[in-house]
């Protein structure tokens, strides 16, 4: 009986001890897991934050790129427009209308060119223009000054008929004094019989 009691007592002591031990050990494990979980959560949060940040950065970067691209396109468009405008202006300045020998009548081709010129003049209401009348080298200097003027006036009348204010158009005749091609052949003469437009 005594021995049994001692065993029981011992058991009584030991088991709870064990129990205690177990419970203690268990508890310890439990704490570790929580910490781990916390850490994991934190890490996750950080990761998320970093990701978010990266995403935001990426977005920002893309936005910047997009903006730059947009700006570039805009610039390019503006450039293109400016170029187009300059080209139109160039065209206006460089595209002469041509005449037959000893004539100041406007050919249909000359009329088409003049219609384009009228458009340009409408788009650029601030500009005034000098119409120069020119002739080929054949014929006499005096008569060619008169003929050159008639060519310039023919162009002016056509443009005013298309609604361009005559105060924006002045004329001068250079007769045969300013050839574009100084050669003495049909091709050169055809080029030289012209009305030329100069934006003031």
């Amino acid at each position, binding site marked *: 009986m005594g021995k049994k009691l001692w065993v029981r007592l011992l058991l009584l002591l030991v088991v709870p001890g064990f129990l205690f031990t177990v419970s203690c050990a268990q508890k310890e494990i439990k704490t570790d897991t929580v910490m781990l979980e916390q850490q994991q959560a934190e890490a996750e949060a950080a990761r998320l934050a970093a990701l978010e940040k990266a995403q935001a950065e990426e977005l920002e970067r893309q936005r910047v790129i997009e903006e730059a691209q947009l700006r570039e396109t805009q610039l390019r468009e503006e450039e293109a427009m400016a170029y187009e405008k300059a080209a139109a202006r160039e065209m206006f300045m460089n595209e002469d209308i041509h005449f037959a020998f*000893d004539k100041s009548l406007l050919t249909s081709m000359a009329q088409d060119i003049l219609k384009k010129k009228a458009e340009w003049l409408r788009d650029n209401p601030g500009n005034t223009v*000098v119409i120069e009348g020119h002739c080929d080298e*054949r*014929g*006499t*200097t*005096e*008569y060619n*000054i*008169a*003929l050159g*003027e*008639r060519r310039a*006036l023919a162009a002016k009348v056509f443009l005013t008929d298309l609604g361009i204010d005559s105060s924006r158009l002045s*004329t*001068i*005749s*250079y007769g045969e*004094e300013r050839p574009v091609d100084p050669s003495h052949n049909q091709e050169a003469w055809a080029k030289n019989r012209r009305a030329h437009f100069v934006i003031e």
Partner: protein
Amino acid sequence: MINKRSNPVCLKILNLPGDLRLFCVEVKQIMKGSIFIFFKKVCPVAIIFSLIVPFSCWAGYDYIDITTPSLRKIPMAIPLFKTMSGNKKEVKLSQSASELLAETLDFTGYFKMLESDTFLEDLQKTGIVASKINFNNWRGIGTELLITGSVLAAGDKVEMELRLYDSFKERLLVGKRYTTSDKGSPRKIIRRFCSEVIYSLTGSRGIFDSKIAFVSTGSGNKEIYICDFDGHNSRQETHNKEISFFPAWSSDGKWLAYTAYKKGKMGLYIKHLKGKQGVVVAKKGINISPAWVPGKFELAATLSFSGDQKIYLLTGRGKIIKRLTDKWGIDCSPSFSPDGKKMAFVSDRSGTPQIYIKDFDSERVDRLTFHGKYNTEPSWSPRGDKIVYSAIENGEINICVVGFDGRESIPLTRHTGYNESPSWSPDGSLIAFTSTRDGLYKIYVMTVYGTDQRRLLVLPGNQTNPKWSPNVIN
């Protein structure tokens, strides 16, 4: 005002015996004061004229009939002038003056200058007066007119005696003695004597006091230049550095009108050649092709301020008197008849540029040219009987002449490129014009018959638009 020294008085005395005639011409000149004008304005040094050896000859006979088309040139001999003391200066002058005389008379186109190596006589050995000349020796080589001369250089004075003989009639036609202190060229004396020679042979004073205005691109721009009738002494008159052209002389030779661009604007400039007076007509449009009314301080020009190129009459101060043409289209290039009663001009009223004549009394306008599609630049002869103009045909431009006798016009140039801008000499014997026969535009001179076409002057660039002045000393 015009041509002071050839007026009807001279013609009346043509029938007097030669010696008396020479005398009369001298007296008349003194009376008209032309010598004083000459002293004062032309000659920087004194040139004294004196009548030498009143010689009996009959000159009521025209050697050169300037009204009849005649291509025969009179054979003329001009031997080396006799040197009186034989000094170096005289020898040099004898050479240069006799050559210059031959050259200047040759310019008129009336003479055939005989080569000096055919001459059988030497003035140095014989003499210059009729009694010392063996006319047989001159007739033998075909001489019809002989000019003898002597040169005396003493101190700073030069004395030159010049005589024109008819070698068949053995008669003195002109005899002059000139004294000058001019150390330079004998050009003035020679021209003066040439004028006497031509006057005695034709009854007209000739061209020796005339000038030619023209346009040259030598400076890089079209500018107006002026030279003597024979191309000497050319000088630049305008310095606008843009375009200057269409010079026109007033009939007293004192004013020049022309068109010039300045800063891209065109104006008609009317300027006194010596003084600073002048005006600019710069109306809207073109202001071109001036032509003075003979004997008046008025000019016609093409203006287009109305929108249509019309010819207007202006005062010498640039004020519009009236409009002279009225049909719609281009009217330009006026040229007046010598009496100022008619005006030739160019108009495209028929569709192509043609020459028309307006009669101011009747207000009638008649078309002059019908042949070809481009007839412009009329110039009315100073004798009143002809008009020269330029015509484009078959890729050429030629100078043509047409009279008022109903006959067809005659081309004076052929197959020589572009021949343009004809202008009469003041005596109506020569025509200056521009031609591309040698490549660039250069100025040439020919007789009214189209003969003796030769280059007037050598300058860089293109020379165009010659305008012969009246024969007056300014």
